[in-house]
């Protein structure tokens, strides 16, 4: 009957399904063409570009002050870190010394962003594996971080708080007490996270040994962030190429050797605790002083090339600015972490089941606007 028609099964007997662009677990508009054998995945082909907004082309016509806001829309869950990367790259070109206070504020905000991003990821991982409840617990804590963001930066997601030379305005007077309250709340909830998801036997079975990628492959595919650290590849930019004063802080680079979904999960869980640790070190030691360095009205980078990389919640973000001495970049390239991480998806998911594909996608923690840019 129609089932044997060419719509469902291709000529050589392959069963092809399109997961996405509108699908509950693709976290946006990712479109995967999946070749199946029963439930087992034989091949995956990602189709990208559903939300390609040509941020790189746009930035070529914007001034060095103006292009930063657009990067909030790339990896919208680590918007602040994206802005920070651009600001750092412009500062590198201008050779501006950023005041210590601004650096500390930037790190605090970046770690809060990382924390909120990981919390959202944790909730979504539960959701993807069929446990709906963790999502709400994660959002409860995330909400208090969002309140901090809103109070100091004026926006919850796309803050646009970093400007070349520092931050846009000083922290809010309530900032310290609010951060401390939030950290206390988050610290007390880590055990809940472990009870409902980490220790759960179904969850362990769904993630352990699923979506394996070796360290060599992870490097070759250009995986970064928790995706690579789950395979034991040391790639934390905060440690290897410190920026904004990360070298003065004490924190551990989390490495897991498993290379599977569970290892990636554990890396992120431990990173949340490390972020809390970093914020605790800084919150009482924010240096006094200016929050922004004096810069010219119109910024002009000297002729040359500038590359700045930062560690976002998902991996290494590279900002590559080619300047011809004008007031706007000649060419700008964002090396986004998700784009490279996504390319490893086929390697991880071939030979697994559809249910595993969902688990793998959620532990890579894809943000599709960052892939498409």
């Amino acid at each position, binding site marked *: 009957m*129609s089932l044997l028609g060419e719509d469902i099964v291709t000529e050589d007997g392959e069963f092809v399904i399109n997961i996405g662009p509108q699908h509950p677990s693709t976290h946006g508009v990712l479109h995967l063409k999946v070749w199946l054998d029963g439930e087992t995945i034989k091949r995956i082909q990602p189709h990208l570009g559903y939300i390609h907004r040509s941020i790189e082309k746009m930035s070529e016509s914007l001034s060095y002050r103006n292009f930063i806001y657009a990067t909030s829309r790339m990896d919208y869950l680590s918007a602040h870190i994206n802005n920070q990367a651009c600001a750092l790259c412009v500062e590198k070109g201008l050779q501006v010394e950023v005041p210590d206070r601004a650096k500390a504020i930037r790190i605090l905000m970046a770690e809060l962003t990382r924390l909120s991003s990981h919390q959202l990821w944790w909730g979504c991982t539960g959701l993807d594996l*069929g446990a709906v409840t963790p999502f709400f617990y994660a959002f409860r804590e995330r909400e208090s971080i969002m309140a901090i963001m809103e109070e100091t930066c004026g926006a919850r997601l796309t803050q646009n708080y970093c400007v070349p030379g520092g931050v846009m305005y000083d922290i809010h007077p309530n900032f310290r007490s609010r951060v401390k309250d939030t950290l206390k709340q988050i610290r007390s909830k880590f055990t809940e996270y472990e009870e409902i998801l980490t220790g759960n036997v179904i969850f362990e079975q*769904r993630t352990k040994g699923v979506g394996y990628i070796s360290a060599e492959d992870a490097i070759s595919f250009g995986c970064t962030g928790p995706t690579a650290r789950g395979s034991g590849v040391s790639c934390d930019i905060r440690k290897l190429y410190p920026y904004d004063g990360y070298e003065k802080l004490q924190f551990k680079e989390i490495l897991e050797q498993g290379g599977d979904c569970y290892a990636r999960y554990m890396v992120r869980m431990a990173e949340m605790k490390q972020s809390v640790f970093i914020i605790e070190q800084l919150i009482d030691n924010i240096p006094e002083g200016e929050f922004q360095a004096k810069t010219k009205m119109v910024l002009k980078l000297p002729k040359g090339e500038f590359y700045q990389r930062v560690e976002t919640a998902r991996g290494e973000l590279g900002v590559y600015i080619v300047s011809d001495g004008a007031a706007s970049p000649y060419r700008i390239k964002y090396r986004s972490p998700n784009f490279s991480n996504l390319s490893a998806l086929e390697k991880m998911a071939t030979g697994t089941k559809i249910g595993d594909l969902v688990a793998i996608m959620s532990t890579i923690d894809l943000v599709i606007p960052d892939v498409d840019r």
Partner: protein
Amino acid sequence: MKLILDISFSSFATGIHEWLVGAIHSEGLVKVIEMVIAGLALLVFLVPLCFFLGYMERKVAAFMQVRLGPNRVGPKGSLQIVADTVKLLFKEGLTPNASDKFLFNLAPVIVVVTSMLVMAPIAFAKNFQIWDISIGVLYVSSISSIAVIGILMAGWSSNNKYSLLGAMRSGAQIVSYELSVGLSLISIVILAGSLRMSDIVMSQENGWWIFKGHIPVLISFVIFLIASTAEINRAPFDLAEAEQELTAGFHTEYSGMKFAMFLLAEYINLFVVSAIAATLFLGGWMPFHIGHWHTFNFVMDYIPSSIWFLGKTFAIIFIIMQFRWTFPRLRVDQLLTLEWKYLLPISMVNVILVTVMAIMGWHF
């Protein structure tokens, strides 16, 4: 109060019967009319029941997820589900062009009808049973397995790849979990010595099987809970729907009233499974009695039997709902591993234990 209720069910039915016999002098016609009345009564009971279960599920989920749940329509949001049903009724029931239209429309009917049929031998209260068939337990387990045909039919006829995958999963799942459900039911049948539902309830007059039957019955109760959760396709075994993997599984293509029928069937199944668990393991409508505490037992007797039955049923429904809102979903191969590697061997050994216990008379 209790006496009035209990007597009323049987005397009401007898009254109607006698009035019908008096009015119509044909035995066969009276039977048909009585059947129609029973069927209508069941429908009238089922629709509010499903509304309530839908409301309960939303509220239970909401409270577990630190949120309020529906609170707009009606007092405390209690009419939300009615509003949703009305919306589904008015929606266009789409039939995909490439689907097998006859099977596509037949599937939801089969699913709903089978789940309603299973209601027949359940004793809702003392003397209140639609059909006290002598092979009650066998009837329940055989009829409930027809539902898989409806699901397979829905998945196949939709001509959608997701639906097909969901239906195939469901087929494998229901067929294998049927075994564990059957075996755990058999352990009670062995103890009670009868397949008739009313006999099983009466055998628990001096204590429910879950207390009388020591650990083996407890084990078969747990196995029954797990396996029947899988059989009615509820999370963590909702692989046939698996929203995050297959969007909506076997009912991806359904909309409007036909979709509502699947929803209706899901809630009726939930109720039926819990009712059977309550009847077999927790004594059905039988009040809670403790040995020779006559005063206590007397007080317990004053609670109407229907309250006892519904209370037990809803307690089990709550547990099944809590499963859904706590656990992640299993993968399809792990689902089968759970059944064939754990539940089935354990319940087989368990049946032997129960048999030994029944023969030796070790139970109370």
